[in-house]
């Protein structure tokens, strides 16, 4: 974070294409059997043993760099399809498709959502989003039909108690952690659900344990912190003169916003289960490194505020 904050954020504009190409290479590599590692049913890890990371994390960031650069260059032609939006959309679509091949719906959703936020704020015409929305719904239906486990997650989301030991298990266990927390929680370190009941208590479901231990007060505090972060990010973005900087900061902030919202939504049973980490809080190297790097970049950009 500190390192990133020292760099001038504008270097990311120069290297954005290289970063994107590297990300694509890694994403393709991870799909090659023997190179990528399968964890929890997704082939999304690359590396040896504990020294491994998720290329999709890298891709999320690289895409933001690329889009910030590409869209700021196309500022004048953004309303035109072929000259303006075509290339970015192809890139977004390719990255999305590769991540879905792993498959990792959560990351893909965060990335896709971030891309949409960037396109929207860069000034893409509204009818474009209508088209995207329609095709997204169609695509979602197709995706669910292609992988039955997603359907299960949806039904589990609607009624977790219909299959408490199967598809509803994670949501129920998560609610068992959050619910008993009450107003003040059990106290720090006093979680019960973390003792093997709740899967992934230190990563995806960290917020469940947090609200179990600190209660409603602690949970609201965390949610407010995230909102404060977003508010500050948007504030920085708006105060920048450089369109690239604006889009970059806004995109990174939007990514953190989306990812945290999806994670918290899952934990509280508001959204169907998708494996997304909670920025800053979840345990996990590549996720944390990336998040901190993002924060660093935003900080470096903040030096150029008006």
């Amino acid at each position, binding site marked *: 974070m500190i390192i990133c904050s020292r760099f001038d954020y504008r270097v990311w504009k120069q290297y954005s294409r290289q970063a994107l190409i590297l990300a694509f290479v890694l994403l393709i590599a991870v799909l090659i059997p023997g190179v990528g590692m399968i964890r929890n049913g997704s082939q999304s890890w690359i590396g040896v043993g504990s020294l491994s990371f998720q290329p999709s994390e890298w891709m999320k960031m690289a895409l933001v760099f690329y889009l910030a650069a590409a869209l700021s260059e196309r500022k004048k032609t953004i309303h035109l399809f072929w000259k303006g939006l075509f290339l970015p959309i192809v890139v977004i679509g390719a990255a999305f498709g590769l991540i879905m091949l792993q498959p990792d719906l959560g990351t893909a959703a965060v990335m896709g959502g971030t891309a949409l*936020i960037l396109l*929207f*704020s*860069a*000034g893409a015409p509204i009818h474009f989003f209508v088209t995207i929305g329609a095709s997204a719904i169609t695509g979602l239906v197709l995706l669910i039909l292609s992988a039955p486990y997603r359907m299960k997650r949806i039904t589990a989301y609607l009624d977790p108690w219909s299959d408490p030991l199967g598809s509803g298990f994670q949501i129920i266990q998560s*609610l*068992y*952690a*959050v*619910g*008993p*927390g*009450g*107003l003040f929680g059990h106290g720090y370190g*006093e979680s*019960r*659900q973390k*003792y*093997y*009941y709740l899967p992934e208590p230190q990563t995806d479901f960290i917020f469940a344990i947090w*609200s179990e231990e600190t*209660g*409603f007060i602690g*949970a*609201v505090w965390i*949610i407010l912190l*995230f*909102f404060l972060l*977003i*508010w500050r990010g*948007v504030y920085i*973005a*708006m105060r920048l003169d450089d*369109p690239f900087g*604006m889009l970059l900061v*806004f995109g990174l902030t*939007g990514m953190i*916003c989306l990812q945290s*919202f999806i994670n*918290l*939504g899952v934990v*509280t*049973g*508001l959204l169907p289960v998708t494996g997304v980490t909670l920025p800053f809080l979840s345990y996990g190297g590549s996720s944390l490194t990336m998040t901190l790097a993002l924060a660093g970049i935003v900080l470096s950009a903040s030096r150029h505020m008006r």
Partner: protein
Amino acid sequence: MRVRMFWILVLSFVAFSALIVRTGYIQLVNGGELTDKAEELWGRSIPAEPERGLILDRKGDILVGNKNAPTVYVIPAQIDDPKQAAEKLAAVLGEKESVLYERMTKRSSIERLSSKGRHLSAETARAVTDLQLKGVWVGEDSIRNYVLKDRLAHIIGFTGADNQGLAGIEAYYDKKLSGTLGSIQMYTDAKGNQMPGLANDYEAPVNGMDLQLTIDADIQAVMERELDQAEKTYKPDAAMSIAMDPNTGAILAMSSRPSYDPARFNEYDPDIYNRNLPVWSTFEPGSTFKIITLAAALEEKEVDLDQEHFFDPGHVEVNGTRLRCWKREGHGHQTFLEVVENSCNPGFVELGSRLGEKKLFTYIRKFGFGEKTGIDLYGEGSGILFTEQSAGPVEAATAAFGQGVAVTPIQQVAAVSAAVNGGILYEPFVAKSWTNPVTGKTEAVHKPKKVRQVISEETSKEVRRALESVVAKGTGRNAFVDGYRVGGKTGTAQKAKDGRYLENNHIVSFIGTAPANDPKVVIYTAIDNPKGTVQFGGTVAAPIVGKMMEDILPLLHVPKQMNQIEKEKTWNDPDLVSVPNLIGLSKEKLKEQLINIDIVIEGTGNTVASQSPKQGVKVERGSKVRVFLK
């Protein structure tokens, strides 16, 4: 660009607000419900069985207690090596290894072992604990201790494998006796290990209330002794007896034969433990029912016992049907008091016809026949009466001397109690009071329940006089107890099967009360089909009740009285003389007293210091009286 960014900021604000609302809903609104469910998930509770309430007699003697009988529980998740654990436990419990293995590997949070693993002796329980098997726990549990064995079994009843009341008082008052289940709650993680930082909860079981019965263990013992004797002598099909306080309806003793041991009830024929004969069996009462006719006729002033006379030729004609007296040649000329003493059927037909069928049946119903008495025991019968429409003069005539109606013993006891206690019909009851076992405070006392006033105190007094006279001079002579004013009535009823009377198969009964001036107890005894004897109530049942009276009245602190109606001698009655006062007499004077008794002299001296039996006691002519000289 900035405008659009601002809208996205607004959108994210809405989204995060939704998160806060959702979290609040889960934690603050839904929290309790989720906590309960979660605790269910974490908890492994070992039930702590409450102690079932004791059952005591009216003086506080324990009739039913509890014995410690621990039970084994297994928590499959805590067992590392079920095969080895099952092997070790099987050896100690004497249970099949495969059965235990199956329980230990079951996908369940906690399993309570059954049969061989339930209700262990103290030694076996200690042996199980000594095995120190992980995941094998010994939980507190207890079983009933029926100290009286087959005595009073039908009243007390018994409990099943889960200490649930299945019969008798145990079933009738199961809820109050059983208390509430407690538990030892252990919090464990998903692997079944104890969870750190969360103490085990102990929710104490709430013990059942102690129940004090109206039963008097000593009176019960007398009753059982006499029935034992009767069973030995007559080898009857069945026998039953009730002793009740006529002034409250409190049952002092009740017995039903054949009986069973509640601890081993499943070894008996269900008919034995399901049928509490004194309240269940329904049969023709026979002559004991004449008390009801008598009471009704007296209350309606249809008869004067001393002034009116009746001639019994041995039979009576009613609407063309000839009804016979039990004495073939008839009782001839008699007063109505003698009609009662002789249990003369035509005499009672006369009383019945004076009342008319309508009034007679109204009294029969007012005395409680035809409906359950309401005693707090299961399995009560209500008896069979003619319906008002079908009851013609013949039916009224037979009912007047106890035939053609079917009643239960408890109905007779309640009705006769009403006839002698001043006219009030009480609801019989067995549960006297409830005591909290912890505080020792009595929390509920049963108050005697008056059903209705049936006859007046005046009439009741006449009934008592007539009944005492039956025992002193009539068919109830064998129930006579010297010094106690016993009144009563015999009954002999033919048993009917498939609509026909059986030959030489009777239920002989006697219902008695004492003392006649102020009844303290009503005792009913019926012997079903006694063998090797004349099947008459006066011969078989009356002496049994007489002996019961003799030993029960002192237990009720009823003093002996001198002014009883003297017993009329018959040819087979022993000749009784009253023991004179010998104390203070000199040795010479003693010899003059030797007319009726045989004096045995002990000690050396000239004056009599003490004698046995004491003065006034009636003994057979020629009995020995010991005197001690000084």
